[in-house]
């Protein structure tokens, strides 16, 4: 990936203070993140959702 593209991705993430050396680290991070995502199974389904559950507190008991 060329340096300009790495800078664009960094800027999109708000990372506009990275030095050249840190941008090189970031380029490696992009590659690593993509490689990891590629390793996810392709048959995951929304019905397997287990974590993103929004729960309201239980109603307070009536004082009566």
């Amino acid at each position, binding site marked *: 990936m060329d340096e300009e593209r790495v800078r664009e991705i960094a800027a999109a993430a708000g990372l506009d203070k990275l030095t050249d050396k840190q941008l090189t*680290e970031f380029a490696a*991070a992009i590659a690593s993140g993509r490689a*990891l995502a590629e390793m996810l*199974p392709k048959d*995951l389904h929304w019905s397997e*959702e*287990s*974590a993103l559950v929004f729960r309201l507190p239980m109603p307070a008991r009536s004082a009566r």
Partner: protein
Amino acid sequence: MSELAFLGLADAAQLIRARKLSPVEYTRALLERIERLDSRYHAFIRVTPELAIAAARRAEQEIAAGSLRGPLHGVPFGLKDIIDVAGQPTTGHSKVGDNIATADAVVTARLKSAGGVLLGKLATHEFAIGGPSFDLPWPPAVNPWGGNHFPGGSSSGSGVALAAGMLPAALGTDTGGSVRNPASLCAITGMKPTYGRVSRRGVFPLAVSLDHVGPMTRSVRDNALLLQLLAGHDPEDPGSADVEVPDYAADLERGVKGLEIGLIRHFYAEDMQADPEQAQAIETAADVLRRLGASVREIRLVSLQEYATCSRIIIRCEAFAVHRRWLQQRPGDYGALARQRILDGATVSAADYIDALRLRGRLTRRTLEAFAGIDAALTVSGMDPPCPIDDAEACARMYPRQARQPFNVTGQPAIAIPAGFTASGLPLSLQLVGHPWQEATLYRIAHAYERATLWIDRRPPGL
């Protein structure tokens, strides 16, 4: 001095109760030892001797007045420096983390109210993710086993302080194995309890959905005593579970006769190739448990790589969410290792993160199905004995070669204990994994193995 240095929590408690050991003298002895040894091992980021002596005096007066609070009363302990202590900085071993905590973490408060004597804050990998690093404000902790070896991490100071006889009890945290890794490489005992068993409130997060706080000690009995003080529901930690806490020491002496133990061999013989001495240590441990009366048979879980994919995506995304503002404003204040590992999370899409959470549910179901019919499982903790700490390539190679992450993903309890030594005298270890909320079964098996092998009686050379 050496006797006091390696005194365990249970034995110290007994001596203190019998008025044969003064908490003040005990604390002074350990502080002197830290003063003498820590320039070599770097276990501590901050020692607080005045506070420690004051706490020890209070404990001594209370005990003299006949008010004994329990096994930690008057006993020194240490905290990994991502755990808050009111009025002290929580540094995360980083230039970035310089806040002064306004309140004790729940686990700190629990140990203080049990009468424990806090000696200070312990070294960690930067924010529990980047290490060993030499570009931070403090040097990395060094393993007392071997000449100049990596002690594991991220709870590295906790492992080193215990192995060097600087304290009898410490807390670590474990998001991808960070209690069990230093326990394994420093020849001590480290428990990652069931997810939700111990409150994380007041502990700087790495990845909230995978973070655990765990007790670290030299012996299994001490570990059970320490977890007893930590465990319990905290309604203000959203991950905390309202589950009854059993007496963890009650079954320690029951032995393993009749227990069914699964051996997860494919982790270290197929998914990865463990160091031959480490692999042999697990096979030998299985034989020891059989000889003690357990039934040990091979079981299969999902491959290590699938657990690792799931864990790494979740850790990176959740860690980046924690650190994003600092990374945007002052990226140069991080060490290179932590910065790089956390930056990984900047580029994973939200959809991939959610897929990783779905995968977590699938892996957990499959793992618990494989545990049907067994009481616990035996496998490796790490694949390798410690490497030289200044060999960055060897440390980087070791980092992913482990079988701890699966049980952060599933939330099951898992304990790492010593399982022998290499021919060159470096620690080997084993990991026992249990059903959710069944830490007591792990302590029972681990204690039986520990008594049968006595690896914990060995001391690092020169100590």
